[in-house]
């Protein structure tokens, strides 16, 4: 008599579908860094455009790069790039460090 000691534990009739966890009920699970970076990027790009500060625009580009990968949100990325481009169009001098 062949006794299958290692009974197959699989149960095809007991399959449950995957339900992505609801992030609204667990806000702590989300990483807030990309959101902050997005916001910072927006602020810096506005500063760079209004005050014509080149280093602001560059920092905005960096911030939007960091958040771009996580959020796939292009708005702040495009805004920061336009801030850099506008700064250089208005004033083609090389950037002086802010210190």
């Amino acid at each position, binding site marked *: 008599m062949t006794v299958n000691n290692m009974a*197959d*534990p*699989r*149960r*095809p*009739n*007991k*399959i*449950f*579908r*995957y*339900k*992505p966890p609801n992030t609204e*009920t*667990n806000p*702590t699970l989300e990483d807030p860094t990309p959101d902050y970076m997005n916001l910072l990027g927006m602020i810096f790009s506005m500063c760079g455009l209004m005050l014509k500060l080149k280093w602001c625009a*560059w920092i905005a*580009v*960096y911030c939007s*790069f*960091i958040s771009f*990968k*996580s959020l796939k949100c292009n708005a702040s990325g495009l805004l920061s790039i336009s801030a850099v481009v506008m700064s250089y169009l208005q004033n083609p*001098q*090389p*950037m*002086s*460090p802010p210190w």
Partner: protein
Amino acid sequence: MRHLVFLLPALLLLLALPDTRGRYNDDFDDGEDIAEFDDNDFAEFEDVSEDPAVDVEKEPPPRAAPSSTPIEDEEDEATVENEDGQDEFEDADAQDQDMYSKYDNEEFEGHEKTNPSFKDTLIYREVPAHLQNSWESYYMEILMVTGLLAYIMNYIIGKNKNSRLAQAWFNSHRELLESNFALVGDDGTSKEATSTGKLNQENEHIYNLWCSGRVCCEGMLIQLKFLKRQDLLNVLARMMRPVCDQVVVVSQKIVLLSLTLPFPQQVKVTLNDEDMDTFVFAVGSRKAMARLQKEMQDLSEFCGDKPKSGAKYGIPESLSILSEMGEVTDGVMDSKMVHYLTSHADKIESIHFSDQFSGPKVMQEEGQPLKLPETKKTLLFTFNVPGMGNTSPKDMDSLLPLMNMVIYSIDKLKKLRLNREGKQKADRNRARVEENFLKQTHAQRQEAAQTRREEKKRAEKERIMNEEDPDRQRRLEEAAQRREQKKLEKKQMKMKQIKVKAM
């Protein structure tokens, strides 16, 4: 004839001067020639052309060096020299004639006496950056672009590494999972419940795998939480503070397995109702236990005591235990489990079995009527991947025994039953927790009810005020008054009854 006699030496002189100048042209820059022959800006230069020629002639050696400087410098230098030349002219006016004769004859031979004051006053002014036309002045921009490129490179490299590690993990665990679960890999989007057979990439550093279709288990979610290798800032931060990748296994309702993999690998297993008795238990590294006891809702409520050292149960000192009651610990810690824990203690971050699992403590906002959080029978495993961040795909094989432990725990917990005393204690604990919860929220619920009542009254009053018909208004007011009186009477009756009962 006389005129001719006078004219001849003059002519000769005139001819000689260009010659002398011409001879020195080889030594001078072309710029000098241009300067001399320009008629607008350098007109003054031409007037005193003899003197600057003389003075400049004096220093062909020093001039050889400045001749190599850019043309823009020359402009400044020219002005400097002009001034200096003019100074010299004032001084040297008297000596013009002598100088001329000297230069005519000697042609600078041996005459290398440089005018020291001339040289000292020769200041090389730096051209402002915005006038320079060189790439060097844009060094900040070049730095920025280089930084961006470095970030992009790191992103690509980090993403690829995480992807390779995930694939290596899956390859080494695929066989075990496929032999235990009917459904391996599901992203929840497809219509049919078929195994995708691959990991579900949530983002660049988190991979999920959902397995289902097994006895004692509703489903098992394995989460590979890699380090954020794709983020350069994270990489730099990790250099200060080493962190591990983790694997988290969550099994719900069927077999709660919470294995914390060193590499934050989370495995979560959900258990069926009949498949697990009511208890709460956790074992893991001391740090993790201390943290979980504070963070986790069920551990803080049911396991009030401090984590006990694992040495009492035969597992390494580095592990500590949180348990609802001693019987549970004895039941869980059988020889095989002890063996697993001992041999892989360094990879185990935390193991959490609970029938009252509801996740971490949620901060309730003010004014919200509180309900008991929904609980599920869960097993949570968090494992640390060895390598402390510098993991290679080969390290994934070392996690396989841990997954075996997960499966073993799932099956074991189904059979684990508390005795009568234990069961009673567990039930009492749960009742106590519920009561506490209700008490805490009692005040809040009362407030909520009070506000609701006030809102109703206000709405009614508004309705009465808005009634245009005075008759109807009066009638509504009277009705409201009567209702209030009735309520007061009811309350008084209640108080009387309570007093009578008390007596």
